[in-house]
C-alpha cells in the first residue's frame, strides 16, 4: 500500500511549460521577475529561486521536491525581489489558496501578479530525502487530502491532468483520533509535541499569513507570550499561532513541513478550519473575501456555549 507509486510523469512536461512561459513573460516584459523552483545541489532537491532574466528561465523546474509555498516571497520575504512591475509566481493549488487569502487581507493585488499554475499530483513529505520516488508512503500528508490538484484562476496552467489516486486522509483521521481522547490525554499529547519546540520560528517565517512585521510574540511590553523555549512558553506560542491563523490558513502545511522538531502544526490549523467550517460554513482559500470568519459575525451565530 505505502509503496504504491504516484504518477509524476507529467512533471517533466510541466517543467518545460513553466520554463517556456517564464521565458515569454520575462522577455516580453510582462513581469519583472518570476518566483519559482530550481534544482539544488543535493540529488533531486529543489529550492526557491527568483528569475529576473529570460535567459535564466531554463533554471525553473517542477518536481515532487518542489515543496515550498512561494507565496511567502510576495509578502514579508519580498524585500529583495524587484519592486517595480508585475511578479510571476509558480503556484501549486495549495499555494494559490494562500494567495487568495492574502488578497483578501490587502497584502497582494491580483493585477500585480502573473500566476503560473502547476498541475500537481503531490510533493514529498518533509522528512523524505529529495531524490525519493513519490509514493503513497512518501507523499506529504497535506497532499493526501488535496482538493486543488489543478489550480484555478491562474494566468497560465500547463495543460496536463495529474493522476491522483485516492489516499487515506491523514489530518481527518488524526483529528478524529485526538478528539476521541480525554482532555488529559490530549494535553499529554500536545505537551509532548510542544516540549520539543526550540522556538526557531521556522513555522512562522514560512507561513504566508504570518506577515506581521513585528510578531506579537516578539514583543516584551507587555510580554504576551514567553519567548523562552520552555514548555510553558512553547505551549503559549503554539496556541497563539493557531488562533491567529484560524479562519485564514488554507492548509499549505508549510509550518508543519519545516518544523525541525516534527511538531504536527498543521493538525491544529486543520482542526480550527474544521471547526470554522462547522460553525460558520467558512473555508479559506476558495475566493477572495474581504472578511474572514473571525472578522465578521452573524446575529444568529451559535452561542450554545454561552450561558
Amino acid at each position: 500500500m505505502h509503496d504504491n507509486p504516484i504518477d509524476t510523469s507529467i512533471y517533466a512536461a510541466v517543467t518545460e511549460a513553466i520554463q517556456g512561459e517564464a521565458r515569454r513573460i520575462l522577455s516580453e516584459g510582462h513581469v519583472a521577475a518570476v518566483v519559482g523552483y530550481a534544482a539544488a545541489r543535493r540529488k533531486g532537491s529543489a529550492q526557491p529561486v527568483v528569475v529576473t532574466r529570460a535567459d535564466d528561465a531554463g533554471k525553473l523546474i517542477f518536481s515532487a521536491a518542489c515543496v515550498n509555498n512561494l507565496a511567502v516571497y510576495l509578502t514579508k520575504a519580498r524585500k529583495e525581489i524587484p519592486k517595480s512591475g508585475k511578479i510571476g509566481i509558480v503556484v501549486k493549488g495549495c499555494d494559490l489558496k494562500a494567495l487568495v487569502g492574502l488578497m483578501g487581507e490587502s497584502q497582494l493585488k491580483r493585477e500585480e501578479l502573473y500566476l503560473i499554475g502547476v498541475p500537481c499530483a503531490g510533493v514529498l513529505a518533509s522528512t523524505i530525502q529529495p531524490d525519493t520516488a513519490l509514493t503513497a508512503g512518501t507523499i506529504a500528508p497535506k497532499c493526501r487530502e488535496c482538493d486543488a490538484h489543478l489550480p484555478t484562476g491562474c494566468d497560465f496552467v500547463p495543460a496536463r491532468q495529474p493522476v491522483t489516486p485516492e489516499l487515506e486522509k491523514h489530518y481527518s483521521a488524526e483529528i478524529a483520533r485526538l478528539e476521541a481522547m480525554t482532555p488529559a490525554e490530549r494535553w499529554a499529547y500536545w505537551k509532548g509535541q510542544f516540549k520539543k519546540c526550540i522556538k526557531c520560528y521556522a513555522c512562522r517565517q514560512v507561513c504566508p499569513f504570518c506577515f506581521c512585521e513585528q510578531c506579537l510574540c516578539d514583543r516584551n511590553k507587555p510580554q504576551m507570550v514567553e519567548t523562552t523555549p520552555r514548555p510553558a512558553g512553547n505551549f503559549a506560542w503554539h496556541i497563539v499561532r493557531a488562533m491567529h491563523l484560524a479562519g485564514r490558513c488554507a492548509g499549505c502545511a508549510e509550518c508543519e513541513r519545516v518544523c525541525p522538531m516534527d511538531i504536527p502544526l498543521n493538525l491544529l490549523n486543520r482542526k480550527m478550519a474544521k471547526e470554522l467550517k462547522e460553525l460558520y460554513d467558512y473555508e479559506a482559500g476558495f475566493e477572495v473575501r474581504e472578511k474572514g470568519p473571525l472578522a465578521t459575525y452573524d446575529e444568529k451565530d451559535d452561542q450554545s456555549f454561552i450561558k
Partner: protein
Amino acid sequence: MQLYISEKNLKALLDRLIADGMRVVAPRMDAGTPLYGPLTDSAGIVLDQLPRRSAKEAFFPLCEDIMSYEKQGRKVSLTDIDPAGFPETVLVGVRPCDAAAIPVLDAVFSWDYKDEFFLERRRKTTIVGLACTKADDACFCTAVGLSPANPKGSDLFLTPLEGGGYACETFTEKGEALVNANRELFAEPNGSTALPLAEPQTERFDLKKVKAWLDGHFEDPAWDSIAVRCVGCGACAFLCPACHCFDIVDEGTEKAGKRRKNWDACGFWKFTHHASGHNPRDLQPKRYRNRIMHKFKYYDDKFGQTLCSGCGRCIRFCPVGIDIAAIVSEISKK
C-alpha cells in the same frame, strides 16, 4: 587504551550508570523525533539516527535559568544559579560532527569571560563518541577536515564492528576513568574489523581560500543571490552543533521571575535590532552573510578554528533549501 565492548555490555554499562544516579544523556525518541535526552534505562537509546538537535545542548542548554528574583514588599531578593548543582553526566552516542564542535565551543566560552554555566557542564560530562556508518548527501564532515571516525571531542570513542559490538578507545582521563570504573564490561579487542564507515560525498573545502575570499568580500552581490530565499528563521543556528549565540531575557511578573539564557540566531530580524529602531543588518542577505562570516572567518580570526563540523543539519532542515555546503564550495572556487 583500546578495548572491546559488546552491545549488551554497553547497555549494561548505561543501566549501571543510571542506577548509580549518573545522568546518562543519549539519543532517544522524543514524541516521534530523535533527540538527545536523559535516559531512564538503556532500552530507550536510539543509535541509528543522527539526533535532530546537536549535542551542544548538553553544555549550552536551549534555555536555562541564570538568576531569579523575588520582590517582598520593597525588598528584592536575587538568587544566582549555582553551577555546582549541575549533574554529573555521561553523554553517549555522540557522532563525530557533534563531538568535534564541543572543543571548538570551549574557545568562546572560556575566552575573556569564563562561562561557568558552560564550563561546569563540560567538566562534569564524559562524552562517548560513536563513528558513523551512514551518511546522506547533506553530510559534509569530510569537507571541513573531519571524518566519520574522527574522535575529536570524545573522551571515549566507539566504532561499530563487523559482527556486532564496538571497538572502544579512550582519549582522556575522563574516558579512562569511565572505563576503569566498569572495567569488567569491557574486553580486550577481539580482532574484528570495523564496519565500513560512511563516506560523505562532498569534496573538501579549501578553508584558507574560503577565508581569503570572505576577508575581502564583506560587500558582494553574491550575498544577495545566496540569501534571497532565506526567510529568517533560526532553524539552521538552533540545529547547528557549533552556533552558540544566546539571548538573555527576564521573564516573570512584577513579583517574581527569572533571568534566562536562550538560544538565539543571527537569522532573526530581531537579532541586531536596536532599541532605537535601527537595524544594521536590515535585510536578510546581511544576516545570512553573518552566519557564513562567523563560521568561516570571524571565529577563525579570533580562535583559529572553523565553526562548522559538517553535520548537515542546516541543509536538511532549512525550510527553503539553503545549502551551506554548496555555498562554501562555491566560495572556495572563487
